[in-house]
């Protein structure tokens, strides 16, 4: 209920809505492909961050391995498309299914691990899958990566201009947001938060904490994989360094940290603030001062963690209640 009031009242939400309404109008009718490019990246990362938020923010399991699911999604659809000519739409569903399966496996085996041990385990699993993508060259073409053919049509999830990708990415974010909002405001959402805050008490009350965590991990994995497919289709290229990059996991976490972990609007606000900033810094400083943009980004991350540990969304809600 608190989430609902936050959703309708807070200024940050208003800001987010205004940004996305104007952004959507521009994405739909605008012609400047650079702005559309920024919008698409913002949407994809926001969606991945919302998915990450479901396990990390609500279930309290700090995954550092969401790159694994992202890579699975990107590779599944790309391989099915390249080898068997299967439409990326079906490939996306297959990727989500495989990622969900892997997610259940990972969560079920690591369910006993708490805190940093869970983070390290997920980190190692993502690296392991990245190595698999490097080594299994018959399937993934190794480090050379897979270059997807350009056949513009809706069936192939490939478009001549960026508007099509924009709508797909927008749909992805809406799907992630709706799924998370439905879960969080249901009984299971309260179970999740209960076991996150007081594991022993939640168990004593008869909540099946393990099952709840595994299911939330599964849904999060499937949604992240969808993001991977869209990303691969947008770039029309995928290699192990893109698909299984450790910074995907960090990026998802970063957006949630800035916006506010365990809040519905958190990842969205984080996405609006951070991804355009990153793209602008990158395009302004990328050429002559390689490294300066990400260095600023790293410094920013430290500052945010230390000075605003609960993110922007929680700050505004605190101001409201007091």
């Amino acid at each position, binding site marked *: 209920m608190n989430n609902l009031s936050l959703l309708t009242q807070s200024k940050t939400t208003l800001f987010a809505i205004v940004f996305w309404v104007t952004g959507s109008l521009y994405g739909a009718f605008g012609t400047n492909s650079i702005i559309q490019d920024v919008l698409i990246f913002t949407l994809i990362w926001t969606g991945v961050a919302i998915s990450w938020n479901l396990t990390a923010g609500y279930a309290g399991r700090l995954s550092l391995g969401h790159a694994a699911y992202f890579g699975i999604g990107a590779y599944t659809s790309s391989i099915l498309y390249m080898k068997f000519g299967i439409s990326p739409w079906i490939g996306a569903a297959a990727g989500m299914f495989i990622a969900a399966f892997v997610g259940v496996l990972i969560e079920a085996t690591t369910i006993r691990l708490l805190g940093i041990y869970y983070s390290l385990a997920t980190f190692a699993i993502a690296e*392991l899958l990245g190595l698999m993508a490097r080594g299994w060259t018959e399937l993934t073409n190794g480090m050379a990566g897979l270059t997807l053919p350009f056949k513009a049509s809706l069936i192939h999830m490939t478009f001549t201009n960026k508007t099509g990708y924009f709508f797909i990415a927008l749909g992805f974010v809406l799907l992630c947001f709706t799924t998370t909002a439905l879960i969080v405001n249901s009984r299971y959402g309260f179970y999740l938060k209960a076991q996150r805050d007081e594991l022993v008490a939640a168990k004593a009350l008869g909540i099946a904490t393990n099952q709840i965590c595994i299911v939330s991990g599964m849904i999060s994995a499937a949604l992240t994989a969808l993001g991977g497919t869209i990303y691969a289709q947008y770039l029309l290229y995928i290699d192990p360094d893109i698909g299984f990059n450790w910074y995907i996991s960090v990026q998802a976490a970063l957006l949630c940290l800035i916006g506010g972990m365990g809040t519905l609007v958190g990842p969205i606000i984080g996405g609006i603030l951070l991804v355009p900033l990153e793209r602008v810094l990158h395009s302004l400083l990328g050429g002559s001062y390689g490294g300066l943009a990400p260095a600023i980004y790293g410094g920013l991350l430290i500052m945010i963690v230390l000075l605003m540990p609960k993110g922007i969304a929680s700050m505004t809600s605190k101001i409201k209640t007091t």
Partner: protein
Amino acid sequence: MDMVAAIVVAGLLQGGIYALISIGLTLMFGVLRVVNFGHGDFLMVAMYLTFLSVKFFGFDSLAASIITVPLFFITGTILYHLIIKRTFTASDPLLAQVFATVGLSILLQNLTLLIAGADVRQNESQIITGSITMGDIRMESIKILILCSAFVLGILVSLFLYKTTLGKQMRAVAQNITAATLMGINVQRIYGWTFAISCAVIGLGGTLLSMTELSYPTVGLKFSLICFMTVVIGGLGSIRGAILGGLLIGVVEAGTSYLFGPIFSQAFVYVIFLAVLLLRPAGLFGQEGYLEAKAE
């Protein structure tokens, strides 16, 4: 038979490198449970600092440790007070530590890229050169030096932890922070010292590392991962565990690499790491129950 011996020796020498660079992390993560994802990047900076001092002062690479060790000690103290100390008071200290140090890692990587460029470099010592041949087995002198340094450093750090007052205080804080505070130990001061000492150890490790491994700005992530695996496999809080864990990883890596190729060998190390984490969370050489007592 000769082949097996050669692989084991090569593995032990590589393992010596892992052991050496993991000692700093054992102190920080193993003893005090401070998570530092910038560990590998600290090593990377120490490697670059070695090049810089060789270039400016015309030192031998080995002598560059005169500069890196004190500099890292001081930097460690500053970083502790600027960053790490503040993460303890955060609502979720683990989250704050992980992401503040990830931020530090990104910052260090890209500052290095900005200043030194993306070129791959390797250092050479003028004093310790060449290799020693025993039978059919060739051993690089510098790797032998690193293996010996790992043992000596491990013994020194163990002596420090078990014989000196400061070391005993560190272990007391690690075992029970409340009781340690009640005994009049200044916990913040102990954390500060540990972080600084562990940074000094990283400085020494980085200098030696720069003579045998290639360095480039993003090399740190690889070392961070190897060190975390070494510390967890060996057993948290155990210096002996870190050294044995490092040697074990080295030998396993060399063996599987010979049999199945380098990618598989890396994957195999991850699998061992996951298996140890799941089946024996206290690590191979750690004390049973140590982790559980701490996690509670």
